[in-house]
């Protein structure tokens, strides 16, 4: 570099590369000589040094806001469990431990095929029953003439038949039944998700929170069955929405009560995954 490569008011690229030690020795020596004679480039170099020192003086953030990794590890643990389709509700994390037992994440036995098999058997059987019943079901207007049940909460004990299970070539009526059931599952789940999303983390009463967690636990196993079945059928979109829902339900069922931090994390997850919209879209598309 015999002269200044400055072009206009910008930063000469060689000064930047010199500053970041990206030049070969010969070129580096050349730039060093140039800096001694070029006031503009020298000033640029000083400014780069100022940028470095100013940024170095900023607080170094390398941990969550409160410096506690527990929630982070719990969330990772849950996500990895979902990844593997293990039963997280039964293998509860010890929330008192500083480090979540990721030890349980990789089980030596792969249960997924067995779970999927069991799911399929259950779902196909119940799907057949559901289709048979649906053909003789009375109309909604005549179905409920007596007094309404006193508890307005959704029934989330179990879906009548989580049957995301129609293989290509199966009868259209079976597919219609599956679509209807998927939509029902989403509707049930949406009530829980919306309840979680709208709950004030700092005012949630323990009883309310326990109720939400109970609903989530009830929905969790069915959601997992739907996801496994969807994956089995290559229904990626539906499986993806189910996986998101499953993660939210799993985190809810694992959370302490009352735990404002956990609820906030769940709410953020719902928002980030845009879960309500995805469920609406999946239901509208007939899954």
């Amino acid at each position: 570099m015999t002269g200044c490569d400055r072009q206009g008011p910008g930063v000469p690229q060689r000064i930047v590369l010199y500053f970041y030690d990206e030049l070969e020795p010969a070129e580096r020596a050349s730039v060093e000589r140039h800096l001694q004679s070029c006031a503009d480039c020298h000033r640029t170099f000083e400014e780069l040094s100022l940028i470095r020192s100013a940024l170095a003086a900023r607080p170094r953030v390398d941990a969550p806001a409160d410096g506690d990794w527990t929630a982070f590890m719990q969330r990772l643990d849950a996500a990895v469990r979902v990844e593997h389709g293990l039963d997280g509700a039964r293998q509860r994390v010890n929330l008192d431990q500083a480090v979540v037992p990721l030890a349980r994440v990789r089980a030596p036995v792969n249960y997924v095929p067995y779970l999927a098999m069991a799911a399929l058997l259950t779902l196909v059987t119940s799907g057949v029953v559901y289709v048979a019943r649906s053909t003789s079901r009375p109309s909604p207007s005549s179905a409920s003439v007596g007094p309404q049940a006193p508890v307005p909460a959704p029934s989330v004990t179990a879906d009548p038949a989580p049957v995301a299970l129609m293989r290509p070539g199966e009868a259209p009526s079976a597919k219609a039944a599956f679509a209807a059931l998927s939509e029902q599952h989403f509707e049930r789940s949406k009530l829980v998700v919306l309840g979680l999303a709208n709950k004030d983390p700092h005012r949630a009463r323990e009883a309310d929170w326990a109720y939400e967690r109970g609903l989530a636990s009830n929905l969790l196993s069915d959601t997992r069955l739907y996801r496994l079945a969807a994956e089995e059928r290559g229904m990626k979109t539906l499986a993806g929405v189910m996986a998101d829902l499953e993660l939210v339900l799993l985190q809810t069922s694992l959370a302490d009560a009352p735990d404002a931090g956990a609820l906030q994390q769940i709410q953020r997850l719902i928002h980030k995954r845009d879960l309500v919209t995805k469920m609406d879209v999946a239901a509208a598309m007939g899954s």
Partner: protein
Amino acid sequence: MADSDLISRAAGGDPTAFQALVERHRSMVYRVAYQFAGNHYDAEDIAQEVFLKVYRSLDRFRQDAQLTSWLYRIVMNACIDHRRRQSPVMSAPFGEEAERRLLNTPEERPGPEDHAYAGELGQVLEGEIARLPQGQRIVFIMRHHQGLKLSEIAEALGLAEGTVKRQLHAAVHRLRGALAHANVTAGERA
């Protein structure tokens, strides 16, 4: 225990090995994610995504490779993927054709003038870093903060080294502009 041993054991089904791997590297991953995202919420999401990708890829890790290089590659791509999901306008892929667009598309965040009142130069610069287009931002973070060589960044991102140089150059140019904008230049401080 060496990282490569932990990965082998984790890939073979040893659950404590993966846990140890996460604990060993989570601070670095979080730091890069925070520098890129500028807030804890997104930083945590990015870090989560990174370790999930690591978990999914344990079997594919080459034993002769450096874990940190592999991890940096995953971190960089997770940062970019995260931004793409959040902002469709930034979804253009890296490459020569997209470079000009990336270079000229600022993030919609508070500018240096919004931070200058604080009189804190580092804060001003952090604000400008947050406004950098994602390509410039990730290159600047990985070179300036993490100390990766431009050739390593280029390899990780699948870019030509010249492209990475231009991204770094453009980032520095903008940061220098932020200095001038804040009227906090080296000459005035001297």
